[in-house]
């Protein structure tokens, strides 16, 4: 069986799903309109913020350590896999959503893009 190649950042960015783009430091550089609409954040509010601001408190440490590991080894166990996680909205509420993260190296720097598709209410995170 041949595993299909993950979609490109450009494809995700211009897709219909909520999308967030981060630079090699893990700082948000862009979000799309769908993301703004569902989670309430404006691009101005998030640009330059660490990705962990849209993650629940309990995930932040693991996220940072995992991000650091990718920077030291360029290997990750979570890229290109659908992950059921919670996303923090601008109003502080949490929405269970499917995160699909990919990484692309552009001009010697890694860029990270993720779609955060909200799941029906009542779906447990990573259940």
């Amino acid at each position, binding site marked *: 069986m041949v595993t299909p190649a993950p979609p490109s950042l450009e494809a995700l960015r211009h897709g219909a799903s909520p999308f967030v783009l981060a630079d090699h*430091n893990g*700082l948000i550089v862009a979000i799309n309109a769908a993301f703004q609409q569902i989670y309430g954040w404006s691009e101005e509010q998030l640009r*330059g*913020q660490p990705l962990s601001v849209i993650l*629940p*408190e*309990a*995930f*932040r*440490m*693991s996220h*940072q*350590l*995992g*991000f*650091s*590991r*990718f*920077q*030291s*080894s360029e290997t990750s166990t*979570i890229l290109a896999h659908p*992950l*059921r*996680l919670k996303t923090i909205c601008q109003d502080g509420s949490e929405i269970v959503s499917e995160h699909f993260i990919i990484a692309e190296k552009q001009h010697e720097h890694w860029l990270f893009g993720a779609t955060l598709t909200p799941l029906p209410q009542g779906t447990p*995170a*990573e*259940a």
Partner: protein
Amino acid sequence: MTPEVNEQPIILELRCILGRLETALSAISDALVITDHQGLVLWCNSSFDRFIDQPRMRSLGHPILSLLPLDHQGDPVLAQAVLASISQIPGATTVLLQRQPLKVCEIEWRPVETEVPTPVIFCIRDISTRISNQELQVTVERIEQQRQHSDRLNLELQQQQLLLANLVRECPVTGLPNRRGLRERLDLALGRLRDRGGQIGVLFCDLDHFKDVNDMHGHQVGDDLLIEISRRLQEALPAEATVSRLGGDEFVVLTGWIRDGSEAIAIARMLQQCIAAPWLLHGQRFDPTMSVGITVTSDPSADGDELLRQADVAMYHAKRSATESLALHDASIEAHFRSNCRVHQELRLAILNQKLTLAYQPIVSLKVSPQDGSATILGHEALVRLQPEQGLPIDSEMLIIEAERTGMVIELGSWVISEALSLLQYHPRRPDHWSLAINVSPLQLERTGFAADLLERIEAMAINPGRLVIEITETKILQDSSRCIQELTSLRHNGVRVHLDDFGTGYSSLSRLARLPIDGIKIDRYFTAALGCDSHLECMIASMIHLGCDLGLEVVAEGIETDSQRLALQALGCPWGQGHLFGRPGALP
């Protein structure tokens, strides 16, 4: 907020360091978990994922207590009270998770006091292996104790079996008294001698060819025959006599009071006749015979075992006798037995210590040289000699008989062949007609590959095979056997000559003689000794010489000791001769 440009490399470096630390912590075998002050999981390593058997994303943000397995009794591994104080007080606990297979873990926690609220680091260690080793030791000790107990029981059982066996006095097959029963009866009979005087006899009876019955018809038929023999013996026994079975085909009759040895012999003959009646089983006819050794004693202090030994020795003497199937033990039989024992022992030591020698007796042409009247030596016969370090020389004939009887003739014969081949290899400058004769036992010929081995050695040593003569006794070659014939035929086809030894003593038919794979005959000394004494035997020797010559065989007369014998043989046309007249066995000239 984007960091200042000059901080970027530091941030990257710190991130790399963090990444390496995270990788290292994930690689260790102990499960590590960092929780917040309430016990909610903030990070864990791969070992923890494996320990709880679920992916990390499911652990993050969940209470550690809900993730840890329950103990073997189904209770939480950490009590609520403990959990309430984990951010203040370090602690540790050992938890038995399951018994079979054993799974035990050690949980240790420690608050990270540099932060408020205080996170907690948990370290969970699987110590099942350590516990298992201890458990294993306990199990090993338990098994060892069980083994010792089992050994004790086995020993007790063996002792009980021994005690029971000592109580058994009867043979299970025939119902006759066994060896122990016999000893009791023997002691009783010796005791009666003390009171009444007189003599008693011990008759050691051994069925002839019983092994053949077992081999050909099976052990059940063998047992049936033993039962029949025991019945016949019991029916024929005189009053006061008893019969016991020692084992195998050996029966011992203990006579009652008898006058002398002749009465014991009479009883033995009567028993031999009684058991000799044909016995029919499943359409098969058996004609049982037995050899009997007898000893008698009037000495009430005689040792029972010694009496049995004497009767046994006499029985073997009878079994080896060509004319008599019973023997009464006496000094000459005992001397013969001891002599055989000595020969056996000396032969064994001589083979072991390489103390054997070969002596060579000439075989000559009986046609006297017209120039000087001397006899031409045509060859020599190699004869084994054993000179013990102490005592008298061993008689050569006894040596061979004992070697044949004990099977040592195989080693002995092998040594003779090696010596003979070495001699032929290192003494090639002999006249063309000269040959060396060696005696070969049928036991050697019956071994697979005898001829092939010998021919291979002859070829490897570059020996002329025509120089070697194999002598085999007439009796043996007639008793056997297709294998003997095959081996001899193979030797002859490759140039080795074969002579039939002791010719005239084996009752061979003349028609058979013509078909045997032989090159010559050696007329037995018995006939040579009769020359000038026995006209009938003279006729026979003349016939043998003419027959051999007519068949184109080499004819050698053995045992020529006098000139008159030589002249008589010359007159009869015997071409070759051997005997003391021409030279005793000795060193090769």
